[in-house]
C-alpha cells in the first residue's frame, strides 16, 4: 500500500468521523418541538359572557377608580423540571418597552399589569431566565422539557395554592410570537410561562426564540 493510498484512506476516515460528530451534535441540539398549539390558541377565544339582561342600561356611580389589587403569584413549583422559585411582581422596562424579567436568574417575574391568580379570565404571565452569561442556568433552564399533562403549583400572595396542568409547549421566533394572545386579559383563565430558547447568537448574546408553556387550572 502506497503512502499516497494510506493518506487517502485517512482522509476518508477523517471525513466519516467529522460527519458523525456533526450529526450527533445536530441531533442532540434539536429543539423539543411544539405540542398543543391549537389547544392553547383556543383558550384565547372570548369567554362566554352573560347574556345582556333585557334592555336596561347599566348605571354606576362615577367614583374615581379604586385600587383593585390582583392576587400576585409569589411562589412557583414545577416538580417535573425541579423548579421551586420565588416570583416577583414586575412590569415594563422603560427603555425598551419589554417585559422586565427579574435580574436574578433564580427568580421569576409575574406581569403585574395583567391578570392575577384570582382572575376568572385571561392569561396570568410569568417569565424567567433560561440562563445568564454571568449567573449560569436560570430558573426556567429546563422549561422546554415540560410536556402535556405535567403539573405545577402557583401560590398567591393570599396563601392560596392553585394547581395547573400543562396543555401546550410552543417555540416561536421572537419576531413572530403572538404576544397579544399570551398577554390577553380575556379568554379562558390560564397560566403562561415564557423563557428564551432556540439557536443562540453568541455575538448579539441573545436567543432567537421564545419558549412558551401554557397551563390551565387542574
Amino acid at each position: 500500500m502506497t503512502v499516497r493510498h494510506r493518506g487517502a484512506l485517512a482522509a476518508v476516515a477523517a471525513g466519516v468521523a467529522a460527519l458523525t460528530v456533526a450529526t450527533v451534535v445536530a441531533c442532540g441540539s434539536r429543539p423539543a418541538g411544539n405540542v398543543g398549539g391549537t389547544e392553547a390558541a383556543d383558550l384565547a377565544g372570548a369567554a362566554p359572557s352573560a347574556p345582556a339582561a333585557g334592555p336596561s342600561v347599566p348605571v354606576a356611580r362615577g367614583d374615581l377608580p379604586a385600587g383593585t389589587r390582583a392576587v400576585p403569584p409569589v411562589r412557583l413549583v414545577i416538580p417535573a423540571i425541579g423548579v421551586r422559585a420565588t416570583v416577583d411582581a414586575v412590569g415594563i422596562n422603560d427603555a425598551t418597552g419589554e417585559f422586565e424579567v427579574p435580574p436574578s436568574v433564580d427568580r421569576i417575574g409575574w406581569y403585574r399589569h395583567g391578570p392575577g391568580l384570582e382572575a376568572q379570565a385571561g392569561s396570568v404571565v410569568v417569565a424567567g431566565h433560561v440562563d445568564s452569561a454571568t449567573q449560569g442556568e436560570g430558573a426556567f433552564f429546563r422549561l422546554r422539557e415540560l410536556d402535556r399533562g405535567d403539573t405545577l403549583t402557583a401560590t398567591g400572595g393570599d396563601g392560596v395554592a392553585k394547581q395547573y396542568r400543562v396543555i401546550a409547549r410552543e417555540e416561536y421566533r421572537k419576531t413572530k410570537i403572538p404576544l397579544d394572545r399570551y398577554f390577553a386579559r380575556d379568554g379562558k383563565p390560564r397560566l403562561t410561562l415564557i423563557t428564551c430558547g432556540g439557536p443562540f447568537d453568541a455575538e448579539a448574546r441573545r436567543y432567537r426564540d421564545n419558549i412558551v408553556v401554557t397551563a390551565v387550572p387542574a
Partner: protein
Amino acid sequence: MQLSYFRRVAAGGAVAALTFAGAGALTATPAYAASSKVSVVHGIPDTPVDVYVNGEKTLDNFKPGDVAGPLDLEEGAYDIALTKPGEPIAQAILSVDDAAVPGGANISLAAHLDAAGTPKITPFVNDTGKVAAGKARLIVRHTAAAPAVDVRAGGTPVFEDLTNPNEAKGDVDAGAVEADVVLAGTDTVAIGPADLDLKEGTATIVYAIGSAEAKNLGVVAQTVTGLHSAPAGVPSGDGGRAGTGVDTWWYVLTGAGVLLLVGGGARVATARTGRR
C-alpha cells in the same frame, strides 16, 4: 322667567346639536362600523333626571354623579330629552333633537353646566386607541361652571389652562397618583386633592363638575378598559447554554467531512486505477 329659561335651554340644545354634528364630522366612520358605544354622564348637581332617547324613557331617576352605559347605538340621529323624574317629556328641562351619533365611535354624553352655570349636553369622543404596555391614559374634561383650571399630579401641573367644555389628555405611567385641580396659574385648589389609581391599559376619564359659585365643585369618573398592549418582547436569557441551533462551526465541520470523503475516495479510486 319661564320663557327666558326655555329660550336658554333651547339655545343650549342648538349648541349641543351643533357640537354633535361636529363630533360626527370629526370621527372617521369605517364602512363596517354601524354602531357606537354611548355612555351618559350626569354632571349637574342636585338635579336627578329621567333620560329619554327618541321619546322612550331609557334611564329612570338618573342621579348626579352617575355614569350610564355603554349603550350600543346604531349610527344615526337621536332625540334626547332630560326631564325631572316622573315628569312628562313635554316638560323636558333639557333636550337635543337630531343629535348625530357617528358609527364606530366611543362617545360620552355629558349633561353638565357650562362656564356660566347653564345646563347643557356636550358629546365627547373618547380616545380608545391602544396605550403602550405599562401606561394608562388620563383624560380630564372641564364640565363645571368655573374658570380655566390647571390639573396637577403630585403638585406639578400636567394639564394647563383647561376651559369648559374642553378636554386634556395624556398617556402616563400606570399606578397611583395624587391629583388636584387649581385655578389656572395659581395654587388655589378648586377640587381635591384625590388619589387616582390609573390602571394599566385603561383610560380614566375625569369630569370636573358643579359650580364654583355654588361651592359644589366635584368630579365624576368613567373608565374605558381593554386598551392594553403586550410588551415589546420577553428577553430572558443571554448565556447561550440552552442554545438549540447548530453553530456555524458544525456546518463547517460537516462541509470538511464531505470534502475529505469525496477527495479521499477519489484518491483511493485513482490509486487503484493507476496500479492496474
